[in-house]
């Protein structure tokens, strides 16, 4: 596993985006076994 070190500002940005999460797309849903996952 690669190491990812975020600055405080980056951590704050990440946290803000996480709160906005609405749906999780499945970029390969045109074929996937569980197309609605």
């Amino acid at each position: 596993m690669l190491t990812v070190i975020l600055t405080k500002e980056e951590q704050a940005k990440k946290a803000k985006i996480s709160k906005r999460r609405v749906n999780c797309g499945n970029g390969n849903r045109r074929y996937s076994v569980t197309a609605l996952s």
Partner: protein
Amino acid sequence: MIRILEIANGKLNQHLLNGAPEYKPESTSHLLIQPLSEDYLCITNSYLNKSFIMEREDWDEEGVYPAEFEQFIGYPSSPLQVIDLPDNLIEESAKTTTFVIALSYDCNLRCKYCYQQCDPHLDRRKMSAENLTFVLDTITAYQEKHPDKNIYIELFGGEPLLKENHDDVIRIFDYCVDHDYSIGITTNGVNIPYYLKDLVIYSGMGITINTTIDSLSENEKTRFSSDTGVDSKGSSLLKSIYTLFNYDITVHVETNIDQHNIDQIGDMVKFYQENGFLGNPNFWFGIARVDDRRFETGYDKMVTDTQLVQKLNELNITDPHVYYAFVKSILTLCRKLDPGFKQMERKYISNYCWASAPIDNVYYIDSALDVFRCTFTVGRKDYSQFKFSLENLENYKLPNRTYMDYEQCRNCKIGGFCSGGCAQSAEINFDRMCSAEKEDFRNFLDTIYYPRVKTMLESYLAENTSEQKELVS
């Protein structure tokens, strides 16, 4: 009375046809008829999506049958618009629109089998800032006009994660965050380490990485790439992938199978299972096939759909996160044998592939605002469907290509399943495509389908011996 044993959902379902003998077929030449034993026939009607077993003595060619028999051997007035997938998949597609942005067709690899990069006329120029603004504004306007639509954004190319695309990629990420859209990125993965921090920061918006590893061997590059000096080894990519899904980013790794790696599939699945990939809810493994839809790459190490299905049947992969992305004309029959068959491609029975079906709203938009439908045409200007704009988007009608598009397909024994085959192949060399489809379908029937159906019949007869005696008496 005629007894029909219909092959569906992995079993034989009995129908007893008692109707008055008033149906006389005009023709039976569109049917695939195969003796299974001295007493039984398997009849497959691709146009009505029926495959069933009946007793030979009940079959009278173009004779007279109970009225209900028409729904098994008849010929429809128009192509079936039915799907053998759960209804909610169709509903989900109807309310979803996917905009796939190709920032440029430039790529840092030159994979030998790549349909796009082998095109000498490929325009590799990057999308201008103005055009990117126009694309994003148009998507916004589309969403305002269709507030109930779920919109997905995808990045495609060329290679979208080139270093010179960084600012545009971040701009698109920010756009997605502002609009609550998730994003999928089709990438060769070489630059994932460069983008890793960004991907982690933005992971909350829902990112899916679609990438390819064709071999886990240390001595091979991932995509049979010609030497561009770029490290495209699977081992490098695996480290990146492992990191991504542990940061809650969905990763689909697909492998393109040909003669050189078909015997590695089992080891690949084992590797992903033993090393914490399969089993992680964010990781998916897709099995695809190297193909040459336009007969142009000269690649001569391909395998057919049936050869690959045979191999996968031997391996009996049960992991729910392994899926297939290559089966075409034989897909419907594969699903009749196994309702859990691992490919859920949104198309009607009488379409060859999702790109020729009127179900998925997917638009590939390139740097010059040309819009493409089929993945194999992206970058070939002759196949541009329209110039991207709200008005053109609203007026565009999704294709519904079927056997009716070709006179020679309308009475072919596999016409309802093959549906004219790949449009790209048909355009370049219809006869070559047609004979390859027929040959592979025949191979599928002989080596997979009929042997399985025969086993199902034997089990059925063994379980229903007493009933069989009653029927006879």
